[in-house]
């Protein structure tokens, strides 16, 4: 049979199974398949560990084909790192690669069969990769993840395409290939069960009760009665692109121009991966001098070309080139998934403006410096100078609003000035004279603040609101020990 014919036959068979699939499972119990599967017996509603019966499900499972690759030689140490590296190699065969600790990879290859021409060619390609990397592997292919994994662990290099033959193929496997907990396997062995087929013959409710509902779920997943979504491996990537100039560039304006295509590439790169970055680095190479690095941070994760360009432009605009530039390289920080809100196409229309708060903050920070833009917050503390602090990690999205600190308030009758001096200012002799004459009139107070004896910065002060003769209102205090007067704040 030619490959073409086989493929067509396969398609026809699949479309039939797709229709029949929902009906197939109940029929399986009575069908004389190699091993009878009475596990799908209905569960009584009052069962203590109720496992939903697959009969309740009417939607057919998605058609998938999983290739499990087990690396028996993989040691425990660094297994995770090694598997990630191996996943990168597996990504050339499919976009859906999933890591199964401690030593296996799962590849969804249904979508790739057509690309490689046939399943045989795909398998041959896979085998060649591991051979080239000098890894001993055990491979198996099956319509479900667990079936493929169990077959591969058992070292049976089978390739099952039809979900109906799963039960038969799994029946001969030893129960150890499920990699269940030792206690569960021990229970099974004490029941005299060593092969999966023997387990499948047991009544479903009994298995759920005597082993665990999780075991039944595993069997359902292996036999394609239950879906089991896998977490896809996402490679850690960064954008990195170089560009060399034919002539040396001496002005920033030309650099900005030359940077445009790089930013365009970067935005494209991010869009393709549905990801964003929060940091960028631009390296400018000179002939003699070492590389000039321009680092920018963004207030929120973005893949927007205009935002990336704005921030880089702003930063470059303030740069003094130490020497002519021969080439440059744009690097991104680590890629992070874009949140749904950042894809809001109408965000810019709100309020009639063209920005969002993160954009404004990062533009200000790009030009003025990170520490020049900050927020302030209250701290529950009695010493006035310690009752607030700067906030540099701003929460810029409305969802992140928290009221815990903000809700802490002073008693409302205690006046606090809008301006607090960085250091209390000792009142001059002239001002003390005014105080004595009543030209600096005490209006409110005293409010005694006595706190902080435990950390060596204790204060014992009596605070007053004082009105200057000409209208300004001050917040002054008298230190209780020294009887000295200080100005601490201005009511503006």
């Amino acid at each position, binding site marked *: 049979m030619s490959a073409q014919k086989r493929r067509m036959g396969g398609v026809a068979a699949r479309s039939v199974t797709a229709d029949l699939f929902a009906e197939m499972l109940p029929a399986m119990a009575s069908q004389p398949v190699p091993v009878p599967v009475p596990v799908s017996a209905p569960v009584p509603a009052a069962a203590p560990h109720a496992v939903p019966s697959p009969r309740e499900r009417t939607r057919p499972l998605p058609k998938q084909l999983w290739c499990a690759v087990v690396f028996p030689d993989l040691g425990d140490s660094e297994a995770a790192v090694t598997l990630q590296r191996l996943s990168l190699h597996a990504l050339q065969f499919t976009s859906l690669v999933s890591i199964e600790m401690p030593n296996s990879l799962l590849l969804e290859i249904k979508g790739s069969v057509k690309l490689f021409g046939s399943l045989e060619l795909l398998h041959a390609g896979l085998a060649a990769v591991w051979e080239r990397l000098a890894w001993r592997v055990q491979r198996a292919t099956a319509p479900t993840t667990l079936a493929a994994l169990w077959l591969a662990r058992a070292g049976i290099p089978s390739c099952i395409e039809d979900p109906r033959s799963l039960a038969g193929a799994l029946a001969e496997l030893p129960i150890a290939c499920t990699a269940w907990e030792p206690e569960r396997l021990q229970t099974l062995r004490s029941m005299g069960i060593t092969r999966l087929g023997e387990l499948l013959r047991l009544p479903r409710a009994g298995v759920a009760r005597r082993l665990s509902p999780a075991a039944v779920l595993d069997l359902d997943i292996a036999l394609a009665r239950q879906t089991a979504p896998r977490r896809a491996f996402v490679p850690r990537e960064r954008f990195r692109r170089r560009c060399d100039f034919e002539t040396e560039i001496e002005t920033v304006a030309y650099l900005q121009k030359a940077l445009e295509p790089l930013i365009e590439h970067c935005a494209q790169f991010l869009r393709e991966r549905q990801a964003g970055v929060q940091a960028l680095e631009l390296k400018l190479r000179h002939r003699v001098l070492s590389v000039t690095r321009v680092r920018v941070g963004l207030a929120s994760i973005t893949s927007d070309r205009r935002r990336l360009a704005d921030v880089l432009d702003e930063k470059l605009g303030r740069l003094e080139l130490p020497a002519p530039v021969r080439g440059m390289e744009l690097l991104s920080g680590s890629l992070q998934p874009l949140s749904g809100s950042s894809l809001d196409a109408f965000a810019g229309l709100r309020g009639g403006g063209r920005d969002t708060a993160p954009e404004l903050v990062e533009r200000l920070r790009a030009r003025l410096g990170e520490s020049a833009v900050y927020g302030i917050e209250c701290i529950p503390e009695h010493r006035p100078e310690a009752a607030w602090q700067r906030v540099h990690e701003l929460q810029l999205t409305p969802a992140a609003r928290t009221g815990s600190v903000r809700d802490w*308030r002073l008693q409302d009758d205690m006046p606090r000035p809008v*301006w607090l001096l960085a250091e209390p200012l000792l009142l001059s002799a002239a001002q003390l004279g005014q105080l004595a004459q009543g030209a600096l009139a005490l209006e409110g107070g005293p409010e005694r603040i006595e706190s902080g004896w435990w950390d060596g910065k204790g204060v014992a002060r009596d605070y007053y609101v004082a009105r200057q003769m000409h209208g300004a209102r001050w917040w002054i205090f008298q230190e209780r020990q020294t009887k000295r007067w200080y100005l601490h704040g201005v009511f503006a």
Partner: protein
Amino acid sequence: MPRETSSLADILADERVWKLKDASASLGPSRPVWSTGRSALDARLPGGGWPTASLVEVLLETHGLGEIQLFLPALVESQNRAGEAPWLVWISPPHEPYAPALAQQGIELGRLLVVRPASATEALWAAEQALSSGVCAAVLLWLQGTDDRWLRRLKLAAEAGGALGVLFRPDRHRFESSPASLRLLLTQGERETHLDIIKVQGGRPGPVEFPAS
């Protein structure tokens, strides 16, 4: 093209007809105003409060004359109003804004930015960015001196972004021309602060009774 004859009222109701008198009232619905919290001052301002999408200039003899108290009720109101751009930006304030005092007055601190630029030009640039961004309800800017051209840019930015721009400057600039739509002068009096309206578009300049808060 023949047109139906319309009554004077219809013509006046037409948006394209600009009415010289009471211009502020016709602007009322499109540009919200924020109450100053002082009825004596509200009555003197067109529309009955601080105009949004415009530049207000406050000339100060010294700090601490109640200049923040003039704007705090409006700032709180602007943050509380649902659907409005809720950010407040304070650029180069003369001292540290004291968080407990502002929280006490009802300001939402999570929506307040303090910006400390290194120079006056950068402060003006930051103010322009914040005003035109559309995410700020009000931008407060403290400056020692600046030229007319920059103020005009700030005014345009405020109009574009719909924000209230407040510029605090020393009172020595009172005799210079300014594009601000409202100019106030705060001076120390014999016993209390004096508030003078130097310039107001659509209103009458003059001193305002300014009771101490």
